[in-house]
């Protein structure tokens, strides 16, 4: 998927630029670590990955193929 | 002095008017229009009579009318107090609605033996007035029995084997329980307290131990089987074979209300709320009534027959009142009193609607009610209002009593009672709302065709009353406050 790779590259470049920019601004950290330049980027990546993992995992366990279709059909 | 004198004559009138109506109805049997007019006029007159008593009672007067002295120390006396006033007011008001409705129903269904029906009805109202206005236990008992007897021909009105069987269960349960339990309770009370007069604060305080008091309370509660506390509830669903106006009379106007009225009156005026509270003699009843509420609601959920479902709903609602009485707090007692009125007006609406549906389409089962709300919008709208009131949702009367009951239970930290009310509210919604949903949401399947006008007028009026009682609860509230104030 070249488009996807293109988008990915673009996003990565954007993120790099943001991290670089982050090094030049004055931080007001509340917990210390959140003032580290680029923290948010890493946190965002990790948190999103964790969220996807969590959701996917839960989906594997709790997702049912059948919908409550008969009722949805009746209820509209 | 004059006020009291006129008050006593009004008391007499309250008994005389329905009696005269009964006689007139019998005499006018050949002239149906005049006969039914007699019922209506009588109902209006009775309402005016009772209404005329109201200002005095609210002002603190307690008119007395001694009827007869059986023997020294054994009197039949009428005496109005706030609770009796409330009950009389409810019964006399609903008699009007019920008369209008009955005329529509009896004619609409071409029922036989209408003269007998209206006459027995009037006698039942007279007995109800006697119960409401009784000044002591003996008087109350007499009219209580008269009420059982006079409603028997109504329950067996159809005279089918099933109706006769139901009438048998009805009479044997009610009379049997009152003879075996209520009467001994009254005699016991009389000799412990030296009187059977209703006195605010009770007459038993300090004269009887807590255990004996609990037993005595049990005799009263189960003796007044009209209150249908389990396990003495079977007569009520059985009596469902009666025509709908009779069901309305049983469930809303008179009979079951006479039962809970007796229990409430006994807790307030014989035991005394403070005494019960101090001794804890009524605690067991909270559990029994709570069980009845939940169990009845569960049974109601499984009932497909509309009237049967409503009957179990009544059993549950009655036990609210019993449970509130057993909580023995002023707030809960107020709730119980107000709920007598609130349940009456909303349950009569539900039964009127059920009868209207039966008259128009001969539908008796919930499962047959698809789309009926679209064919009979007035009827089912009224039904829905009644159902909301059963659940206790504002803006309907059912909210009022529940409010005080919960406040009473909460202030006493009776969390069992609170839990029962919470759970049963959900259950009430679960067995009543589906009917409304089914009626309105399923396809109509036919043109609009309402029941006879008289019936629609009556049920619309009571449905409106259910809302109006919520908006203007002044009279029941003040009477209920007067009940517990000293």
């Amino acid at each position: 998927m070249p488009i996807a790779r293109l988008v990915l590259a673009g996003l990565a470049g954007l993120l790099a630029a943001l991290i670089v920019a982050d090094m030049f601004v004055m931080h007001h950290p509340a917990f210390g670590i959140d003032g580290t330049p680029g923290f948010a980027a890493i946190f965002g990546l990790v948190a999103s990955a964790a969220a996807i993992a969590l959701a996917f995992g839960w989906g594997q366990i709790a997702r049912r193929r059948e919908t409550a279709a008969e009722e949805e059909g009746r209820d509209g | 002095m004059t006020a009291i004198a006129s008050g006593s004559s009004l008391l007499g009138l309250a008994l005389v008017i329905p009696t005269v109506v009964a006689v007139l109805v019998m005499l006018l049997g050949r002239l149906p229009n005049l006969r039914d007019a007699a019922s209506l006029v009588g109902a209006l007159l009775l309402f005016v009579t009772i209404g005329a008593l109201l200002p005095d009672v609210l002002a603190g007067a307690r008119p007395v009318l001694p009827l007869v002295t059986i023997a020294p120390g054994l009197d039949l006396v009428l005496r109005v107090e706030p609770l009796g006033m409330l009950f009389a007011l409810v019964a006399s008001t609903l008699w009007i609605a019920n008369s209008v409705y009955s005329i529509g129903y009896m004619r609409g269904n071409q029922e036989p033996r209408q003269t007998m029906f209206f006459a027995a009805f009037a006698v039942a109202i007279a007995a109800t007035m006697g119960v409401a206005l009784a000044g002591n236990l003996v008087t109350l008992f007499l009219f209580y029995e008269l009420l059982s007897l006079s409603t028997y021909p109504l329950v067996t009105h159809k005279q089918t084997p099933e109706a006769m069987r139901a009438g048998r269960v009805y009479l044997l349960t009610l009379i049997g329980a009152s003879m075996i339990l209520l009467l001994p309770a009254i005699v016991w009370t009389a000799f412990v307290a030296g009187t059977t007069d209703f006195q605010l604060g009770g007459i038993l305080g300090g004269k009887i131990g807590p255990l004996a008091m609990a037993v005595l309370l049990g005799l009263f509660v189960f003796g007044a089987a009209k209150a249908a506390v389990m396990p003495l509830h079977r007569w009520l669903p059985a009596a469902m074979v009666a025509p709908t106006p009779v069901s309305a009379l049983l469930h809303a106007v008179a009979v079951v209300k006479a039962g809970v009225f007796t229990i409430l009156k006994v807790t307030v005026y014989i035991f005394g709320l403070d005494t019960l509270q101090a001794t804890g003699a009524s605690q067991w009843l909270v559990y029994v009534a709570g069980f009845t509420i939940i169990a009845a609601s569960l049974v109601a959920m499984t009932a497909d027959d509309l009237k049967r479902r409503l009957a179990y709903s009544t059993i549950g609602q009655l036990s609210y009142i019993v449970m509130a009485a057993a909580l023995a707090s002023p707030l809960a007692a107020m709730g119980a009193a107000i709920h007598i009125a609130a349940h009456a007006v909303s349950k009569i609406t539900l039964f009127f609607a059920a009868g209207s549906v039966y008259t128009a389409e001969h539908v008796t089962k919930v499962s047959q009610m698809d789309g009926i709300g679209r064919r009979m919008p007035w009827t089912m709208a009224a039904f829905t209002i009644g159902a909301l009131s059963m659940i206790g949702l504002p803006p309907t009367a059912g909210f009022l009593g529940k409010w005080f009951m919960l406040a009473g239970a909460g202030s006493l930290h009776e969390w069992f009672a609170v839990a029962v009310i919470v759970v049963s509210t959900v259950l009430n919604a679960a067995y009543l709302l589906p009917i409304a949903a089914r009626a309105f949401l399923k396809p109509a399947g036919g043109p609009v065709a309402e029941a006879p006008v008289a019936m629609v007028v009556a049920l619309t009026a009571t449905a409106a009353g259910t809302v109006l009682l919520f908006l203007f609860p002044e009279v029941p509230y003040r009477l209920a406050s007067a009940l517990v104030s000293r």
Partner: protein
Amino acid sequence: MSFLAAIDQHLPVIVVLAPLLGAVLVALVRVEIASWPIAVLAALISAAAAFRLVFVVEQLGVVSYRLGGFAPELGIEYRVDAVNVLILLVVTAVSLVTLLYARQSVAAEIDGGRVPWFYAMMLVAMAGLLGMAITGDAFNAFVFLEISSLSTYTLIALGRDRRALVAAYQYLIVGTIGATFYVIGVGLLYLATGTLNLALIVERLPDVVSPRALIAAEAFILVGIALKLALFPLHAWLPNAYGYAPSAATVLLASTATKVAVYLMARFLFGVFGIHVEIGPVSVTGVLILLSLAAMFVASLAAVFQRDVKRLLAFSSVAQIGYITLGLALANPAGLTGAFLHIVNHALMKGAAFMAIGAVLLRCGSSRLDDLAGIGRTMPATAVALTIAGLGLIGVPGTSGFVSKWYLVLGAFDDGKGWLAFMIVASSVIAVLYVGRLLEVVWFREPGKAALAASEAPLSMLLPTLLLAGLTIFFGIDAEMPARLAGAAATVLLGGHP
């Protein structure tokens, strides 16, 4: 001296003599058609005299009438006070109503030739009972006792069922034993005091040297009377006797015979021996309470299991007599008032009940419980009377039964015997069972063949039945009059002045 005043003087003797003469007249005339009017007339005169006596006694307190003018020691004294005037009133009134009722019932149940005998015996029985009640002489009471008993045996034997003969025979033997005991007791008293006049016996008792003789006399007399009044456990003759006698006879016996015996017992207990006398370590009241309670419970329970309504009501009578003797045993104003009230009330409601059953017997030919099924639909008025009577037996408020039980309970509490009050109430619950069973059958069962064929009782039977039922209701709502009379009787028995 006006004519009325002259009659007033002779009232006591008129009360007894009227039925006795009536009996003789009936026996002489021996015409079926004439016997009933004569009997009714005799009863009417007697009842009128008794009614008048009530007023006289209320004015004078005590009316003493010396037969032949002899002094009490030699002759016989009729002595009427507040106690026995009530009994006289009940006996005459009920007898009158019974006779009014009897005509069609008797015509149906008794062979034509025996009808005059029946009325004659009814009048003799009535006279005997009245005599027992009115006399102030212990031996004279025995004579009247025998008169009433002998006529009663005959009446029972006139029942059309063959078992009636057995019942009559049984009652004959038992009654004779009772009478014998009684007369032995009276003899012992005579030996001790030298007189048969009750008032004189009382005067002389303090001088009696041998208390043993006295106690023996008391034992003989009380057991003898107890047999006659069917005090538990000496009641076994009663269900058969009542069950198989002709309906009209049953009404008379059930309403009056045992009541007079109760009166006699009360007279001896309170007037002669004193209620608080003890036989050895056992107090009379204690025994009496015990036996009364046993009667109330055991007989009521037995009634529950009866299959014949007349026997059911008969057992109920045994139980109800238990209430009355309980009231005697309480020996306080309220208890005694209750006892005497119950004598009146029980006469009314048991009379009504047996009359109703007599009507059913006439129409259906059976008094078996099963045959009464659904009778409420074909004989509604009779069934209503039966219902009222039944409610009275339970003691439902609004019926006279409630008022008398009320006084009994009151008496129990006055005596500090709360448990006794509880027992009274509890035994009423058993009454609920047997009455409920009866009413259930009458009103709620599907009518059987017999019931369907039946029609409402003839007016001549219905009216007396309804009259007694109506009085049961009336005295339940306004008990002022009977309560006053019973209260006066209680006061007299307890030694006060009326």
